[in-house]
Structures are given as C-alpha cells and as structure tokens.
C-alpha cells in the first residue's frame, strides 16, 4: 500500500515539472497553473484513479522488491520441512497459489513475473510516445506532402492487426528483449502520431498560433513552446492508454512463446501458455493466477488512463 500512496505523488511531480510554461504571458500562466492544480485535485479524488494506483502500485512493488512479498525461489521446487517436493498441489498455507507441474511456487512466480513486463511495457511506450509525438507535432503543423506520405504509411501499419505485425517482426529478428521492445515501440508510433497530429492540426488553426506566426516566431518555437503545452493532455492520455496495450501485446507475445527471457524465468504470459492445457485435468491454479495478474495490471492501467482522460476533458 505504501507504493500506492507514493504514486499519486509521482503524478504530482510530473505535473508540476510541466508547470513553468510560456514565460511570455503573465496572467495566462497563472490561470493554467490553477487549472492544472484543480485537475490534479479532481484526479487524486476519483475512485478509478485511486483503485488503479493501488493495483498498479502493488505490481510496481512486486517488480522493484519481489523478495519482500514472496519467500520461495520462483525457479526452484518447493520442498517441505519433511524434505518432500510438492508437485501440482492445490493452493494451501505453504504455497498460497499452489505449485506447478515442476513443483515451483505459483505465488512466487506471479510476484517475480511483474518485473519483466513492467520494464518492457513502459520502455516501449516511452520510445513510441517520444517519436510518435514528434512525428504528430511536425506533420500536424507543417502538413504538406511529408504529412500525406506519413499519413499513408501510418494507415498501412494500422491496417494490419498490431499483434500480427509484432509476431512477424519478433520472429524475423529473433525473440530478444531489445527486439520485442523495439517492435512494440515501432507499432505504437502510428496510433500516437495520428492522435497527436489531429490535436496539433486543431491547435494550429487557433488564433494564438497565428499571433505567434505574425510575431515572427520560428516554427520550432511555435511547435515546442506554444502548441506542445496545449496538446500535452492528449499525449498523457494516449501514453497511458498505449501502456495498457503494450502490456496486452507483451503478454500475448509471451503467451505465444515470444519472450525475451529463458522459459524457466517467471513470466505471466509464458506461465499461462505452459499450464493452460492442464485446466481440463482441473489443475487450474498455475494458469489462473498469472492470467489474473495480467488482467489486473491491464485493468489498473486502464482505470488510471480513463480517470486522467475524464479529468482533462471535463
């Protein structure tokens, strides 16, 4: 729960770092800061944001400090005090989530499984957010033939289901962590760029941009200092939504056997893939708990994304 309490704080500092915006206009800056403060106040009070942060905070804690929550080695068989190895035992006091077919503690594997996905998903999302925002800002502001070409390429990428493209890319270049992160980043550039481009296009038509142009400001200044602060809300919402999809894609790739690590490494998607065929034999626990872990993380991220979206659009 400590991590959950920390997290809204993290959000605060993120927002406050954005605050010193244009130094040019005095009164508008103050209004914007007030609006931001009010939005943050609404945000930290919304139930979806609180629940989402508790869930995501729990998994962050598991990723950062798994030994705090789990005692068993996720890769070794559980051995009782009497010296017997447990295999496929149902959940009980020793192994809270039961043991899998190799006698490994499912609970420990679930806790330790948070780290790989919570490193790869934010990494891929941030790379995509950075490039996608740049592409969206520049194509939306300059328009012209580069924008036309770019829009067609993005549309082509979006016309193939992302998971299929991810499979093709990861198979072609080999299932290593950099390839997987790079593939997801590449695929998410398209939707982020498209959203930011649309927002930039709308902003470019507003008077303040015309005014800046007439003042003789350079395009780079207009894009980074005038337009960007006004589309940052769109970027934040888009990035949190994409983070949910990155978790989705990573988990699905792992389920299909495309994970960066070794098969014995704790990984939620891999664990579901290796155990789901035992469900018909009523050995449900090695599958259900990692599946619930994936589900809860996606739901947590979605709740956060949705509450940010609601606050910013209210």
């Amino acid at each position: 729960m400590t991590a959950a309490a920390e997290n809204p704080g993290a959000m605060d500092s993120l927002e406050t770092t954005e605050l010193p915006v244009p130094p040019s206009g005095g009164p508008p800056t103050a209004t914007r800061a007030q609006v931001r403060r009010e939005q943050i106040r609404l945000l930290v009070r919304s139930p979806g944001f609180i629940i989402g942060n508790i869930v995501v905070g729990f998994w962050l804690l598991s990723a950062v400090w798994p030994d705090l929550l789990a005692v068993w080695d996720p890769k070794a068989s559980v051995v009782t005090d009497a010296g017997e190895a447990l295999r496929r035992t149902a959940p009980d006091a020793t192994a809270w989530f039961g043991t899998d077919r190799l006698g490994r503690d499912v609970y420990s594997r679930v806790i330790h499984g948070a780290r790989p996905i919570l490193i790869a998903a934010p990494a891929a999302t941030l790379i995509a957010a950075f490039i996608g925002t740049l592409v969206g800002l520049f194509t939306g502001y300059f328009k012209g033939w580069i924008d036309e070409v770019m829009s067609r390429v993005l549309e082509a990428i979006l016309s193939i289901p992302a998971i299929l493209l991810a499979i093709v890319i990861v198979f072609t270049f080999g299932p290593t962590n950099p390839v997987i992160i790079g593939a997801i980043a590449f695929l998410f550039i398209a939707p982020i760029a498209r959203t930011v481009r649309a927002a930039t296009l709308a902003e470019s038509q507003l008077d303040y941009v015309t005014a800046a142009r007439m003042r003789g400001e350079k395009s780079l200044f207009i894009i980074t200092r005038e337009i960007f602060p006004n589309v940052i809300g769109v970027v934040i919402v888009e990035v949190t939504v994409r983070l949910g999809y990155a978790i989705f894609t990573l988990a699905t790739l792992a389920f299909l056997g495309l994970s960066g690590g070794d098969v014995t490494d704790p990984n939620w998607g891999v664990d579901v893939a290796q155990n789901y065929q035992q469900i018909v034999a009523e050995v449900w626990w090695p599958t259900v708990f990692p599946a619930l872990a994936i589900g809860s993380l996606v739901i947590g991220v979605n709740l956060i994304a949705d509450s940010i979206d609601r606050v910013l659009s209210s």
Partner: protein
Amino acid sequence: MRRFVVRRVLLSLVTLFIVLVLITLIPNLAPGDPARKIAGGTASPERLAAVTESLGLNKPIGQQLTDVISATFRFDFGESFTRPGTTVTSLVTTSLWNSTKLVVFSLALVLPLSIAGGVWAAYKRDSWIDRLIVNIGVALSSLPEFVVGVLFLVLLAVPIEFFRVVADPPRGSGVFTQMQYLLLPALTVLTVYFGYIARITRASTITALDADYTRTAFMRGLSTGQVFRKHVLRNSLLPTVAVVGTQLGYLFGGMVGLELIYNYPGLGRMIFDAVDAADYPLLRGGVLTVTLIYMFATLAADLVIAWMNPRARLSLSEAA
C-alpha cells in the same frame, strides 16, 4: 458523393500498396539466409537454390515487388512450404471460412447487446446502471483474449458440460452443434468488446439526445420509442458502424491467443503457424487477406456513414 468515393478508394489503394511493399520486404530483412531456415541446415545446395528461387530472393527487390503485386491480383501465392502440394489459396480459404464463422457468431452476440447497453446507459445517464456499463467498459477493454479465454475455461468449460473446451466441432456437425462449440470463444469476444462498443454508442447517443432536433421531436409529442427510432439512433449509430469497421481486421486476424486456447483453426493461428515455420508464401497470403478485410470493412463503414450523413462526407474526406 462520387468524388468522395473515388478519393476514398484511391487512398485505400495507396495503403494496400504500402502493405504490399512491407510483405515483400519481410523475408529480405530476416538476418541469415531464410532459404536455409526453411530447407534445413543439412539441405543440399540444389535444394537451397530451389527454395531461394521459389522465394524469389535471388531477384532484385523491384522484381520481387511486382511479383507480389501480380500474385495479389491473381490471388495466387503458389504452394505452401510447410505443406507441399497444397496451395496457399486453399489454406487461406479454409481458415478464412473458420474465422468468418467465429466473427459472425461473435458479432451476432456483441452488436445487439453492446448497442442496447450503450443506448440504455445514455438514456439513464448518470444512474448506477450507466456507471456500471461505463466502468465495465473501462475495465475489460484491452484485456488480452487469451486471459479471458482461460478464465472461461476454468469457470465454465470444466464445471459445465454444455460448454466445450475446444471450439472446432467434429466434421459434419450441424449449425447448432457448431454454435455450441463456438459459444465460449464468442463469449470471450463479447467480454472484451461489450464495454468498448457500448461506450462509443453511449457517447454518440448522448450527443444525439442533447441535439435540438431531438428536443423538437419530443416537443412535437412523439413517444420516446418513436424519437429513438426516427431521430436518435439514426445519428448515434454512425460512430458504432465506424468502430466495428476498424475492428474487423483484428477480429479476423488478431485473435491468435484465443484461437490457440480453444484450438480453433482460424486465420490468426494460420498466420502464426506460417511465421513460426518461415512459410513465407502462406504468411504473405494470410497477412494480405487480413489487410484486405480491414480495408474493405473500413471502406464500407465510411461509405455507409457518408451515405447516412452527408455532413460526414466532407469531414471524412478531410480526415482521410
């Protein structure tokens, strides 16, 4: 209208061309010799040469691209590498038919339920039922299908005999048996899509309910049912049509995890197996089929919207 259609179709063709470039490049980008990967490490030089030849990898890239384009228009990608003697076209057709059954059955559940849910939520705006529907949507959309799929296996298929653990019915089953086998995968699609589509329908229904024409219709003394049928739904279902159009490519080709869990031989799994076996002709045929489905679906959706709402024509041709 005609100008809009022409422009929209031309744009689709440009997109198709870019996808064709992508699928031509794929085997060329693979590190190492893809022919050796397919033929196996111990293959004779003659066999390697034959595989390279059939992949077209010894030709310049421009020639490869025209070959792929010509294969696309004939819809003939030759024989599958993994199953010699079987054409890609016949494999794609079989999988496409299986996927079609799953998608049609799923949408038959998803569309009425989620549209009704969305309209109901909009009608009862800010009530507990509205909040429930919206929050289900937030929580469940973008859950991986394989996660929902395994949970249904545990909760439904194992304890209740009526639900099947595999989705592929025995050969020669009747329609109802086939539907019984497809029920769990379809319920999985319903779970993932219900909230998403309900939310979009809700938002557009609220916009339509707040519009002046709706108020006028109520003031003219029309009943709630008449107002909904004649004024609200006509406008509020447009975004839903558009969203379903954009999701069709995914429904046909993206549900690899679900098709694996329920052991269903659909398009997604066919493409996954083709990638796994470096079966490039099958991979190209499959990816292209999914792209074409997406293109036709989004095109059809845009045309339906343009036909139903003249104002949309302008904004669509701007956006497209």
